[in-house]
């Protein structure tokens, strides 16, 4: 709870009905997915609750956010901003904190059709934004987290890989003008948004160096360096006809498949051939989706219940599956892309099981377009999270996946994570194959203490393997403990990160639990 005088000041900013410091509200906001094993990795009780914040606030505007941040500085209370709030990165690392739930900031500020970008506030979900941009024949980049996740959060603060990345890139690379409340309370407007005369959203860089460089890297700062209140993000051509009609009822709708869309699922039979195939397909610049995933995941994206997924396990395990979806606006474009795929399949000796062994439900195509693939596979045990997350060449990703197999199998044999044959992986192409990332979705039972511990141990060992094996940097290298461990082997980047934190957040007000603290408030390493 907040002290009365402090509560009053916050109430004056957001209104009495938009702040709650009661036991019920603050406890509810302390809960999140995956916090149990994050707690375990930090030597805390592996429960799904983080430290309980003092209060939860619902600001409605950038100005309110600014005032809240100023008050936090005044009273030395940390803040943690969240929007749709999926994941432990939304949780405060101390009980001397307030949560800013940005739900009331939910405007699509503009869709600029001629300049091919949209400007959104934090609580606009990917599906909402896509539904609006489709009206103009345009599409957005949607992260793999799903269409219910915040577009702004993905672009400014989290990660950003997506199924459609061959055509829509990575969230961090789609950022244009950005409005950013710094931890000190100033409002920073990046790029052309900072012009005094006729500011606009079309550029996020300059003048001179780009401050996007301190805003985020491969992953974002997760509220560790202020609050992003608006962002402009690039728009892309919608890949096919925008008519999006579903009939029938949940969960297996009947989707009117657009004219020019087609899926290919091919077994490359080895990592080596998979690498070759990925690169060749992407060189031709025809794919809307180009992903490698484990055979388990392939079956998951074609099933809609856990039971039907398990049915498909008997389908036969593919060794190195490759999913390619092509889509086109016109028949001539579609004919060309199909012809290219035909040639490629001949060149690479690949067979498409779609149309031969298997025909997906029409809903599969809707979920490709809405980036909502395979969710049932992820909740087979109740909980899941991805280890790995490195991004560079296809070869690196596949090597990381290959090395991960025996490690994962070790934990599978212990019975603490689910058996996906050890190959559980998702790898996707970016920008027509210029780089790839790979992550290893891992399924655990969040209600089983041994499974939670096992998941935590697996993540740690996986990280360590990547570090010592020169296999790139996984997604979740964050927080003092991990930065202190990784930094010395990566050009001491953590020292620069710390300087940035110290400079821009001198009072240490923006929660650094999933970023870095200025003074190395590192958490004790577990024995």
């Amino acid at each position, binding site marked *: 709870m907040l002290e009365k005088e402090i509560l009053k000041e916050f109430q004056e900013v957001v209104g009495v009905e938009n702040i709650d410091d009661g036991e019920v509200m603050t406890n509810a906001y302390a809960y999140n997915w995956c916090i149990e094993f994050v707690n375990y990795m930090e030597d805390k009780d592996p429960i799904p609750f983080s430290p309980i914040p003092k209060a939860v606030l619902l600001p409605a505007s950038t100005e309110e956010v600014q005032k809240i941040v100023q008050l936090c500085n005044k009273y030395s209370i940390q803040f943690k901003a969240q929007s749709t709030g999926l994941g432990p990165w939304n949780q405060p690392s101390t009980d001397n904190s307030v949560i800013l739930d940005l739900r009331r900031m939910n405007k699509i500020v503009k869709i600029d059709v001629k300049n091919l970008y949209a400007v959104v506030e934090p609580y606009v979900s990917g599906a909402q934004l896509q539904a609006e941009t489709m009206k103009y024949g345009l599409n957005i980049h949607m992260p793999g987290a799903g269409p219910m996740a915040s577009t702004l959060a993905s672009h400014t603060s989290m990660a950003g890989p997506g199924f459609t990345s061959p055509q829509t890139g990575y969230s961090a690379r789609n950022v244009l003008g950005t409005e950013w409340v710094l931890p000190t309370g100033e409002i920073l407007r990046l790029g052309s948004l900072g012009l005094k005369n006729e500011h606009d959203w079309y550029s996020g860089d300059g003048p001179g160096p780009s401050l996007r460089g301190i805003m985020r890297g491969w992953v974002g700062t997760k509220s560790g360096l202020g609050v992003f209140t608006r962002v402009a993000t690039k728009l892309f051509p919608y890949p096919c006809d925008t008519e999006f009609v579903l009939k029938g009822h949940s969960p297996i709708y009947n989707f009117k498949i657009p004219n020019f869309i087609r899926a290919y699922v091919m077994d490359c039979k080895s990592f080596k051939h998979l690498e070759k195939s990925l690169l060749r397909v992407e060189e031709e610049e025809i794919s809307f989706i180009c992903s490698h995933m484990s055979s388990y995941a392939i079956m998951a994206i074609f099933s809609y219940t856990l039971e039907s997924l398990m049915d498909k396990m008997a389908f036969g395990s593919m060794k190195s599956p490759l999913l390619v979806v092509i889509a086109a*606006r016109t028949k001539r474009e579609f004919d060309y892309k199909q012809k290219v795929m035909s040639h490629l399949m001949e060149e690479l000796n690949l067979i498409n099981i779609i149309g031969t062994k298997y025909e997906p439900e029409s809903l599969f195509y809707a979920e490709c377009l809405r980036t909502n693939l395979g969710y049932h596979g992820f909740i087979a045990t109740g909980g899941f999270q991805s280890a790995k997350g490195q991004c560079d060449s296809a070869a690196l990703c596949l090597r990381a996946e290959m090395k991960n197999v025996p490690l994962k199998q070790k934990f599978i044999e212990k019975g603490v994570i689910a058996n996906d044959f050890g190959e559980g992986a998702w790898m996707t192409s970016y920008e027509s194959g*210029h780089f790839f990332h790979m992550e290893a979705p891992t399924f655990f039972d969040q209600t089983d203490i041994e499974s939670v511990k096992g998941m935590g141990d697996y993540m740690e060992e996986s990280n360590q393997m990547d570090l010592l094996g020169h296999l790139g940097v996984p997604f979740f290298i964050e927080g003092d403990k991990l930065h202190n461990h990784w930094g010395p082997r990566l050009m001491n980047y953590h020292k620069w990160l710390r300087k940035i934190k110290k400079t821009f957040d001198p009072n240490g007000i923006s929660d650094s639990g999933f970023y870095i603290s200025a003074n190395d408030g590192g958490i004790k390493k577990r024995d």
Partner: protein
Amino acid sequence: MIMNNDNFLQNLTKICGSKNVSQDPEDLKEYSKDLSFIKGKSPLCIVWPSNSQQVTNIVKLANELKFYIIPVSLDSKFKHHGDSLPKKDNSIILNLSRMNKVLSIDRKNRVVMVEPGVSFGQLVPILKKKGLRLLLPLNPTASRSVLATALEREPITIPRYHWDSSDPLLCTEVVFGTGDLFRTGTAAGPGTIKQQQKMGQAQVNPMGPTQFSPFRIIQGAQGSLGVVTWATLKLELFPSTQKVYHFQSDNIQDLLDLQYELLKYRLCDELFILNNLNLACLLKQNPQEISELVGNLERWNLIYILSGRGPLAKDKISYLEGDIDEIKAELGINLSAPKVKISAKEILHFLNEPCNKPWRMRFKGAYQDIFFLSSFEKIPTFISLMDANNKKDFGIYIQPINQGTSYHIEFDLYYEPESDNVVKTIKEKILNVGNQLIENGAFFSRPYGLWAKVVFSLHSVETIAALKKVKKIFDPNNVLNPGVLCFDD
């Protein structure tokens, strides 16, 4: 900053070797001026390091002895923006031209690793032999540094390959102003570059390491935050077929509308608009030929290229043409081909090959360029502003960038350099026009020269403050290229 003179030259010589340090007056004179209107000071010496260790040692020395470093990639003969001129006493020129190795070319991952001294003239033909191409700016000079061009965020001619404003720059090795060596992106590790490459890594992800992206801070910094000693750059595969389309109109809106549709659906490769003067300068070599061609071209010229590769190249071009014809029919615009024959070969030549001397110097021997970013709607406004000044001697180049989310607009002011009066007039005009553009919302994201001060004065104070904080982190003693951007105000 007060320089400590003790053993200054000896230290530099010890680091680089005597052959790589010069105080020759002619050399010093060359680096104290360029083709801009900025007045530079004479440097103390020129230093040519051979590797990143030497660069590191020099930067550390600068911090210790308190002198300034102006990084320069290649020769400054054609430099136009004043950014590499010493603005303070006690400056040295750090000439990186002898670090000129093409470190690796990776066809599989479509990436090249180069040192700063590698020029377009050097690299383009090597890549072509391997079936690869750089993402080029518009007809770069052969002697220009490939790496420096990428560091300047110079726009490339293929907007659909411009996935991020930073492209084609990927990873870098950089010496910050503190003297610390750093590698950005996935090049940071874990492992040495060799160890990374052994694991299949190709240094193609520029983001990171982890939660920041320092490559973005170095880019656009005009050498004032770090000295880059190598970088990886994106490559594309060289098409086997390139079909050139050239349309003209005296109404720029028709061309803008068409190029928007091509952009929206990512239908073509190279895509840009030039006025008749700039197109003529690109195509012809001397003033007479240029003037003659200008007279035979409509004011506005849209050029786009459809390309294909391999056995299905023709199929690809055929479907693209079909889609584009449909778009043109829907738009209902009637565009003419040029009256005078301009061969595809001529156009492809300036698109695919660097030029020996800056093409902008062909018309009158000298030029000044004003360039900024704009939204689609404001392009005609900015053109009208320029027209109000003087239509005749301006070249205009309009380049959609960053997946079509903004436009690089460039006005090239041509003049004869010999006349002092003309130079004075041009200088006034540049300032005047620049100020007008800034006041009307032109975004000078790459501020150089005379109007840099105005650019920052009309930008938000929070941005300036943040940039200065970044400078304080990466170059706390301001040893790198002081006087550029906003860091010294």
